[in-house]
């Protein structure tokens, strides 16, 4: 009995050590550029860029397969940051992928909701709670405003409502001063 335990422990220790050593020895460095691009993207996971999430889009940009102006939630500011990072020219948002909207969250009208769970399956960030035939609701702090839940709802009870400006979300707006024509 004791030898059995010793032998199994021995095998486990040797293999564990070998694997641990191999994990360090054969470590593969990830592409840091992808991480940097991913950090700029808004993480809405909305897929409007044509890729299934922000990370795949970041990889596509890093590989030169995608352009930097395909992210509507990131808006002009995001494109400017990407252009800075990659040393490319700024270009306006590609209308094909959508237009920039104020940041908003999904709100479920709980009177109408029939509890079909379709929106829960569509949500990329698990921000909707609820169960079959139970009323669903959106966790506002988790919602990224990607609008993916709006289309599947069979009773159209989900609306996108713009986030109200609070002390925490307020940002100084760049003053744009129109130069008046010298009349």
């Amino acid at each position, binding site marked *: 009995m004791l*030898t*059995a335990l010793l*032998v*199994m422990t021995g*095998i*486990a220790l040797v*293999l564990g050590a*070998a*694997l641990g050593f*191999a*994990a360090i020895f*054969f*470590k*593969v460095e990830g592409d840091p550029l992808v991480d940097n691009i991913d950090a700029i993207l808004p993480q809405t996971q909305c897929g409007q860029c044509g890729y299934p999430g922000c990370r795949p889009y970041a990889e596509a940009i890093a590989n030169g397969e995608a352009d930097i102006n395909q992210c509507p939630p990131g808006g002009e500011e995001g494109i400017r940051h990407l252009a800075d990072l990659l040393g490319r020219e700024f270009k306006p948002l590609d209308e094909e992928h959508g237009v920039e909207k104020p940041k908003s969250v999904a709100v479920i009208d709980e009177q109408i909701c029939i509890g079909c769970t379709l929106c829960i399956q569509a949500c990329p960030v698990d921000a909707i709670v609820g169960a079959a035939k139970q009323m669903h609701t959106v966790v506002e702090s988790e919602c990224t405003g990607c609008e993916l839940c709006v289309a599947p709802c069979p009773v159209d009870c989900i609306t996108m409502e713009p986030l109200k400006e609070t002390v925490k979300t307020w940002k100084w707006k760049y003053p744009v001063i129109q130069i008046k024509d010298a009349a």
Partner: protein
Amino acid sequence: MSSYLFVILGAVLVNNVVLVRILGLCPFMGVSKKLETAIGMGAATTFVLTLGSGTSYLIDHYLLVPNDLAYLRTLSFIVVIAAIVQLTELVIHKTSPLLHQVLGIYLPLITTNCAVLGVPLLNVGLRHDLFESLLFGFGSSVGFTLALVLFAGIRERLDGADVPAPFKGTAIAMITAGLMSLAFMGFAGLDRFQ
């Protein structure tokens, strides 16, 4: 020398691990939809199965049998195989990213391939020595790859065939596998010439 040849030939054709011993059916049905993935899975399994047979023999012969622990075979073999699969994945990821991308998810899946556990256990039952174990492991995995690739080819053709509705998909694949199995039983007479 010819006995070694018969070990390989026997493992590939006569006692084909999938079609005659009916081991490793999960990847056989699961990854045989495309010829490309079938070849990738076959290559990965060949590597792991050959290495696993050798290592399992060493563990059994120098660790388990002298300590009278033969009942630990299944447990220790599966631990060793799991470790080899992990190690293989790490090494391939580092040395050949392209191959790693081709094999992809099939590499870790080999851990749960019962043929990979079955062959080392058969090695013990057939009293193979180290070299024969390696040969038998290699032959079995070549047989596995052969069956997988043949089956994938048939399934690609089946996609375009006019199959009656109740037999579509997995049902006709099962029947095909059964027919292939029957065909491979025909090799059973080969070992008489040994």
